[in-house]
C-alpha cells in the first residue's frame, strides 16, 4: 500500500536533449513529482504506461516521430494522457494545431520553472478528474450489468417517467412486482433518489423514450 501512495502520479518527459530532460526530471523531483525520461517518442511508446494519474511533457521538434505525430498516435490508440508541449521556436499554426488536439499548454523554450510546474499540475489534475470520471462510468456500467434483464427493462421505463401502474400494464405483471424490481434496481445501482437514477440512466444511455 505504501508503494501505491508514493506513486500518486507520474510525468513522462520526452525530449531528445539530454540535459533538458534531466533538468526537468530534477525540477519535478525538487517539488516531489515523480517522472520518467525518454529520448524519443518511439522509446516512450515501447514503455508500458502505469495506471496512475500522469501527464506528458513533450518536445515538438525531435528526430524521428515528432511531438505532434506522437499526439496523433496516442489519440488514435485512445490514450488520453494530457500533453504539455515545449518548443525551441514555435509558430502560430503549430501551436493552434497542438491546442486543438487537446494539448494542456504550449511552452516556448526557455520557460520559467514555475510555468512548467503549473502546466504539469494542471495536466495531472485533468488526468485525475478524467480518471475519476472513467472510474465512475466503469462502476455505473458494472452495477447496471449486475441487474437482471427484467430489472434493466424496468429501470429504462422508470427513468422514462412512467408510473408503476403503467409499467405493470405495459409488461403484463402486477404493480407489486414492479415495485419489488424497482427497489432492487435502486439498491443495486446505489441510487438514493429517482433523480439520481435518471442521471445514471442518462449516462448509460438506457433511458427509454417516453411513449
Amino acid at each position, binding site marked *: 500500500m505504501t508503494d501505491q501512495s508514493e506513486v500518486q502520479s507520474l510525468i513522462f518527459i520526452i525530449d531528445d*536533449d539530454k*540535459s*533538458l530532460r*534531466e*533538468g*526537468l526530471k*530534477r*525540477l519535478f*523531483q*525538487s*517539488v516531489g513529482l515523480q517522472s520518467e525520461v525518454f529520448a524519443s517518442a518511439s522509446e516512450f511508446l515501447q514503455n508500458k504506461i502505469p495506471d496512475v494519474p500522469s501527464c506528458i511533457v513533450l518536445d515538438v*521538434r525531435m528526430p524521428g516521430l515528432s511531438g505532434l505525430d506522437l499526439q496523433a498516435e496516442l489519440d488514435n490508440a485512445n490514450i488520453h494522457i494530457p500533453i504539455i508541449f*515545449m518548443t*525551441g*521556436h514555435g509558430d502560430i499554426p503549430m501551436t493552434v494545431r497542438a491546442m486543438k488536439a487537446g494539448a494542456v499548454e504550449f511552452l*516556448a*523554450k*526557455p*520557460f*520559467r*520553472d*514555475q510555468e*512548467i*510546474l503549473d502546466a504539469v499540475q494542471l495536466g495531472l489534475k485533468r488526468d485525475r478528474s478524467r480518471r475519476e470520471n472513467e472510474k465512475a462510468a466503469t462502476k455505473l456500467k458494472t452495477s447496471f450489468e449486475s441487474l437482471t434483464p427484467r430489472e434493466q427493462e424496468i429501470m429504462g421505463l422508470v427513468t422514462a417517467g412512467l408510473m408503476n401502474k403503467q409499467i405493470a400494464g405495459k409488461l403484463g405483471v402486477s404493480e407489486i412486482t414492479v415495485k419489488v424490481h424497482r427497489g432492487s434496481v435502486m439498491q443495486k445501482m446505489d441510487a438514493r433518489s429517482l433523480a439520481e437514477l435518471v442521471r445514471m440512466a442518462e449516462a448509460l444511455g438506457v433511458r427509454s423514450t417516453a411513449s
Partner: protein
Amino acid sequence: MIGRARKLAQILDTTALFRGRLFPKFVAVFTAVVFVALLANATFETLFSYQDRKASLIRIQQEQAEAAAGKITEFFKDIEGQLRWTTYQPWTMAASNQQRLNSWRLLLRQVPAITELALLDDAGKERLQVSRLGLDALDSQIDFSTDPKFFEAKARKAYYGPVYFRHDSEPYMTLALAGVGNASVSVAEVNLKFIWDFVSQIKVGEHGHAYVVDAQGRLIAHPDISLVLRNINLSNLPQVQAARAGLPQSTQVTEDEEDYSQEVLTAYSAIAPLNWLMFVELPINEAYAPLYYLILRASILLIVGLLLAFLADLFLARRIVQPLEQLEKFASTVRETKDYTLRIDYRGNDEIGRLAVAFNGMLSELSVARERESSNHIALARASRLTMLGTLMASITHEINQPLAAIATNAGAGMRFLARANPDIHEANAALKEIDGNAHRASEVIKNIRSTFNKDTHDRALLNINYIVLEVLALVHGELNKHRISVESELLQDLPQVRADRIQIQQVILNLIINAVEAMDLVKNRARVLRVTSEMQEPGNALITVQDTGAGIDPKDMDQIFDAFFTTKSSGMGMGLSICRSIIEIHGGQLWASSGLGHGAVFNIRLPVAKAGVDE
C-alpha cells in the same frame, strides 16, 4: 557653291554605304535596268537606221547605174544612127564616090567619137576609108571578108567588136553595120574615151566609183585608167558573177583586190546592146559613216544616261539605306546601353517613318515590361533575403534556446532544492553543474555560428567593385525611375580588384541603395539624387560610397544604426545594416556612416584590394 560641292561629295562618298549589301544591290539593279532600256533603244534605232540607210543608198546607186547605163546606150545608139544611113547605099564604082567621101568626112567631123570609118562592099572588100589620123583611101580592095566585123555584121546587121587599145592608151571598139540586102557594111572605129571620161565623172560619195565590164567580164571603163589598160578580167568578182547570173541588182560584197580587200555596196545596170554591165560601188565604210556616227552618238548617250542613272540610284539608295542604317545603329545602341527610354528621331510619313514609329512603340512596351520585371526582381530579392534571414534566425534560436531552457530548468530545480526545509545540497550542486555545462554549450553554439560565417570564404573571387555597383544600379533602375531618383556615379576607372564574395558584396550595396531610396521617399522639396562613387583611398584600400539626399541620420542614432534590431522604419527588422557591417568586416573592411554635405547620409565601404599577382 562650296556647300553644294560638299553635298555632292557626301552623296558620292559611298564607301561606307557599300559595306552593307543592300545598297550595292539596289544601285546595281537599277543601273542595270536603265542600261538595258537605253541599250535596247540604241540598238533598235541603229538597226532601223542601218536598214533605211542601206535601202536608200542602194536606190541612189541603182539610179546612178541606170542613168549611166542609159547614157552609154544612148551614146552607142547615136553613133549607130549616124552610121546607119551610110549603109543605105551599096558600094558602086561611081563618080558619086568622091561625093560620098566628102559626106563621110563631114560625118567624122560631126561625130568626134568615130576615129575611122570604112565601107566594105558586099564581098567584104574595103572600098572607102576615111580616118582622122591617117590618109583617106578609096577603093583599097583590102579583103575583110573573113573578118568578124564583116561577116558578123552581115549576119546580124550589127557587130560590136571587142574593146582594144591604141597606143596602149585609148580604148577603141569596132562597130560595124550592114545595110539591107546587098548593101555594103560600114565599119567605124569608135573611140571609147568618151565613156571612160563619163564613167570617171560619176561620183558616188567620197570614194565611190563606177566602172563598166564587157560581156566577158573584162574591165573596160574605170576611173583609174591603168586598171583598164592592164586588161583585167573581173568576171571573178562576186558582184560581177552575181550580175551575170541575173541576181538582184544590188548586193553588199567583199571585194578582193590585189593588196587589200574592202566591203563595198554595189549596184549595177545592164547596157543593152553591148551586154556590158555598169557598176556603181561605194565602200561600206563610207556608206555607213553616218551610221557609225549614229552608233557613237547612241553610245555617248548610253554612257551619259548610265552615269545619270547611277547618280540617281546612289542618291535614292542613300535616301533609303541611310535611315535603315540609322535604325540599325540605334538598335545596336539600345542593345548595348540597355537604355529603353531612347527614342528614334526620324520624321517622315514613308515606310521607314512608320517603321521608326513602330520601333519606338516597341521600345515603350519593352521599357514598361522591363520596369515591371525589375521591380519584381527587387521584391523577390528582398523576400528571399528575408526568408534566408528567417531560416537562419530560426536555426540559431533553436540552437540557443535548447541550452537556455536547460539552464532555466536546472536553476529552478536548484533553487527549490535549496529552499526546502531540509535543503538538498547534493541535488542543488548537480543542478548548478548542469547550468554551467549548458552555459558553455550555448556559447559554443554562438562561436560555431560565427566561425561558420567567417570560414565561408570559398566563394570569394577577384572582383571589380565597379561592375558590381553597375549591376546593382541596373537592377534597381526601374525602382529609381519609379521614385524619380537621378543617379550620379563617379567610379574610378582603374579601381584595383578586391577578393570578395560576389553575392555578399552585391547584397551590401543593394541594401545601402535600397536604404537610400527609402530615405529619399519623403523628400519633396529638393532633388532626389543617389550618388555612388568609388576611389582609392590609401594604398591597398578601395573606398565605395553611397550617398543620398534624404533626411540624413539623426546624430543621436549615429552610434546605433549598425546595431542589430535597431530600426527607424516602421516595417524594418533592424538587421540590414548590422548584417552589412558583418559582411564587410569578415572581408577585412569597414562600413561606417557619415553625414553628407548638405542633406542626406553617406555610407562608406572600405575594402582592402587584392595584392597584384595573387590569384587563388
